[in-house]
């Protein structure tokens, strides 16, 4: 059981042209957070609240201005194979075919060709793309690419999986299938997961815990435990789960929490 810890983390981007004058803009402030490897923490919040920034901090792409981020008590020193990221726009390597993209983390570790090929094919099968290994990635549809990206992250056998709006641009059906898929993967791999999403439905369905980030500067304004993912995993129909009064109450509550935040740009 691993634990990812944010301790009193704040973040300011350095002052640049176009920002307000008079100092750096605070983006995140006073973030304290713990994510265990049996959790799936869904992060919701307004556009610009700092969700992506939070994920980038966890990934180690940027360093916090104050505070520490640690895995099992050891402060992180940058990105590492223990925290794999799935990007919103997949970030697959176009010069590699689907299989070689999945095998990429294995290549980095020096796994021999035959072994990594076998492992990559197994992962592709897991994400339902057994046939697609030899195809160049630009021939894959959005949903297929997203799944290759997830398989690639899983190949690194990370302790934490960081997902940034991985289902943003999908239609309703594809999206609901991908949601089920993420739930299953999470359960199998046992990796602690952070999932950023714009959809409150999605956060409630998938998250064991839901975090609301309020903007200007980003703070954790609410943290709610949710058990719907367990219901779905144990076979309940998504429609039934969504229809439950508890789900509706929590949905309304979260909507209120997001809308409650002070207003900024959208003045229409």
């Amino acid at each position, binding site marked *: 059981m691993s634990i990812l810890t944010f301790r009193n983390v704040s973040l300011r981007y350095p002052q640049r042209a176009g920002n307000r004058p008079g100092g750096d803009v605070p983006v995140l402030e006073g973030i304290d957070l713990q994510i265990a490897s049996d959790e799936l923490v869904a992060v919701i919040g307004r556009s610009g609240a700092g969700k992506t920034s939070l994920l980038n901090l966890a990934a180690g792409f940027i360093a916090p201005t104050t505070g520490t981020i640690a895995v099992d008590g050891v402060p992180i020193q940058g990105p590492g194979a223990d925290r794999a990221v799935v990007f919103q726009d997949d970030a697959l390597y*176009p010069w590699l075919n689907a299989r070689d993209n999945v095998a990429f983390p294995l290549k980095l570790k020096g796994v021999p060709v035959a072994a990594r090929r076998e492992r990559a094919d197994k992962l592709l099968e897991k994400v339902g793309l057994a046939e697609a290994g030899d195809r160049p990635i630009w021939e894959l549809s959005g949903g297929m690419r997203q799944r290759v990206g997830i398989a690639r992250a899983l190949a690194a056998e990370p302790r934490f999986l960081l997902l940034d709006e991985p289902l943003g641009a999908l239609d309703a059906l594809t999206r609901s299938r991908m949601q089920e898929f993420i739930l299953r993967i999470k359960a199998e791999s046992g990796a602690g997961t952070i999932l950023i999403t714009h959809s409150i439905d999605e956060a409630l369905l998938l998250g064991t815990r839901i975090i609301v980030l309020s903007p200007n500067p980003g703070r954790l304004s609410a943290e709610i435990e949710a058990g719907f993912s367990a219901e779905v995993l144990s076979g309940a129909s998504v429609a039934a789960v969504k229809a439950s009064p508890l789900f509706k109450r929590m949905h309304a509550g979260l909507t209120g929490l997001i809308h409650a935040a002070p207003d900024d740009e959208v003045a229409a």
Partner: protein
Amino acid sequence: MTLSTEIATLPQQAGRERSRPARPLPVAAISTLTVAAILGLWSLASAYTLVSPVFLPSPRQVVLALYNLAVKGFVDATLAEHVGASLIRIFGALLASIAIGIPAGIAIGTSRVGRGILDPVVEFLRPLPPLAYLPLVIIWVGIGEASKITVIALSMLPSIILSTSAGVRSVSKDHVNAARSLGASKGQVLAEVVLPSAVPSILTGIRIALGAGWTTLVAAELVAASSGIGFMIQSAAQFLVTDIVIAGIVVIALIAILLEYLARQIERRLVPWASHR
């Protein structure tokens, strides 16, 4: 470069061809027609001796000169020998400038120190006229093949360095971040992500460099050459043997066009993904 927005024909891109009854001529056919038209004009100009034949021989004379070049040669070497000598120099220079230019471009593109040191050097070298530094090249590398290769390589280097550094800088931040979060070391990021992303840009740089190399061929072969297309042209020009000068120019252009074509093919094979990102 292969994607084209045919503004004039956008509405026809799909489905029924709305306003165009016949299949349009392929680009290659239009090009062939153009070349034929140029040859025709040239023939007419020399047939009516608009220009003295000493300065504009007819296409027939040039073809004859090419034939004689191939069979008997000029200034003690046949056409094949001249072409061979020049090709060795061009490709020697290409190898040298790739060996120097790609690491230099990577240094400029990935590190501030590299940029600080190499940027002024590149910007200094870029505008220098080969004819001006020829004596310095001889002092430093002598009059052997090395000097010719150096002159050609100096003209190729800037475009390879600049296109490599541009390619390296254009690497997607997400691609780099992804590799790092999948456990790549700095060296692995460079080798597995930055370099592959820069390949299309580097190939473009090599194509431009080849063109630049040919333009300095004559200057390079001013230095103690005894064969080479540039040397051949130079010698012929001195004696007003214009048909050979023009034959030489045609040979250079044909070889360069052939190499450009090959390079485009290689590009299509090697980086099919370049048009898909």
